[in-house]
């Protein structure tokens, strides 16, 4: 636990002191801000604003955003040689991976939390009639979704010491996990299509959390993806010791 806490602390501190992290945060807030204004702009033409508009955007943006966060996590440690020091410290490999993952997820959580300001604004300008619970549901979903994306990104960060390769592969994987929701359009066999679709991240968000339905199975799915991906990452880090 001590190891997780220490590594988590270092990760968080490095986000808060790195210009890169602020740049990403500013860019995300700019894009979501425009989306939000657009969304309420449309609602003046008699369409109720979609409470899940911002989370829906994240579902897509995470394809690029998550690898950007995770690519350096292990690849950089390996390149700088600090991984050797971490692995020779009296800390378990899992603490290293979990600490780093928790740090990245916390950073993501903070950015997500800032965008929740939009919901509060909406609550005010709509005389308290916004479906805040629906929005909260979508946010819970996209928070878990983000955790799963970061966990997937970490696998690739652990698998290669080249950050660009790590980011590219993670992006490609996340893209498949996103577009796979529409696999039925290309695979005519509905059972195969359904099975593949069930494995995608988007299918466990778009048809439940995003429409305001909290399903235990989706929570289990995302938690499971995170657990499996972290497990694989830990094994990959551990594999440094097998040589």
């Amino acid at each position, binding site marked *: 636990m*001590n*190891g997780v806490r*220490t*590594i988590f*602390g*270092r990760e968080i*501190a*490095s986000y808060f*002191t*790195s210009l890169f992290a602020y740049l990403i945060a500013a860019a995300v807030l700019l894009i979501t801000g425009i989306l939000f204004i657009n969304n309420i702009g449309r609602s003046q033409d008699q369409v109720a604003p979609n409470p899940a508009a911002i989370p829906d955007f994240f579902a897509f943006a995470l394809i690029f955003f998550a690898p950007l966060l995770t690519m350096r996590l292990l690849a950089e440690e390996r390149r*700088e*040689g*600090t*991984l*050797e*020091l*971490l*692995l*020779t*410290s*009296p*800390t378990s490999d899992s603490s290293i991976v979990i600490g780093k993952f928790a740090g990245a997820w916390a950073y993501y959580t903070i950015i997500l939390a800032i965008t929740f300001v939009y919901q509060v604004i909406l609550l005010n300008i709509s005389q308290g009639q916004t479906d805040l619970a629906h929005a909260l549901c979508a946010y819970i979903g996209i928070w878990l979704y983000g955790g799963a994306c970061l966990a997937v990104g970490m696998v690739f960060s652990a698998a290669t010491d080249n950050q660009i390769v790590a980011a590219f592969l993670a992006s490609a994987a996340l893209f498949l996990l996103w577009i796979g929701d529409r696999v039925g359009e290309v695979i005519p066999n509905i059972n195969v299509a359904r099975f593949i679709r069930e494995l995608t991240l988007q299918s466990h968000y778009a048809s439940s959390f995003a429409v305001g339905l909290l399903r235990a199975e989706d929570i289990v799915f995302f938690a499971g993806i995170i657990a499996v991906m972290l497990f694989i990452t830990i094994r990959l880090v551990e594999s*440094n*010791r*097998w*040589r």
Partner: protein
Amino acid sequence: MIEVKDLSKRYGDRLAVNAISFKAQPGEIVGLLGPNGAGKTTTMRMLTGFMPPTSGSAAIGGFDVVEDSFEARSRVGYLPERVPLYPDMTTEGYVTFWAKLRGVRQPAQAARAVLERLHLDDRSKTLVRNLSKGMRQRLGLAQALVHNPPVIILDEPTIGIDPQQVIEVRETIAALRQSHTVLISTHILSEAEQICDRVIIINQGKIVAQGKPGDLRKKLNAANLESVFLQMVNKDKRA
């Protein structure tokens, strides 16, 4: 403190370390001497638990590096050849981080103490990336010492720094003799001769000679370690 028995490491079909055995007592500084690629770094990596041996065993303070990896690792301070740094941290933050990770009770105090000892205390708020090469080397040393481990393993600690700093680092290492067991690798013979109580010469993964620097010189009837070394290497080539 360090006990190595028939330690071997095979990469594919290359034997990087070939059945080496040695011991190091508390308060002893042991030099691992050999040309590049002789197997020094591999040996040290096995001792620090970074990679497992192919065969043979090694123990730190009586704890096997494979079976009791955790206990062994907590008794070692390690400085790899390329100093591993986090460029975006402050000097103090960096040392405190490693102190915490290794379970030091009061990490901040320990960090300040070790920085003072290595004359880095006036740079404690400086970012690591703004440090000079010599200071980085000392910072690397600081993280290896911060948890006051009984065994300190230093891989080429004086490589790539200027002569003045080399002297400082050597003095620091020499000062560790009282309370620690130090294993240091180098390919500079004079350095080994200067600070080590005992020297182990390895070449192509095998121990070719070991003993006190003076004894080795006498035994081999050489003027200095330089010639001992050359003798060894040439003998190997002929064989």
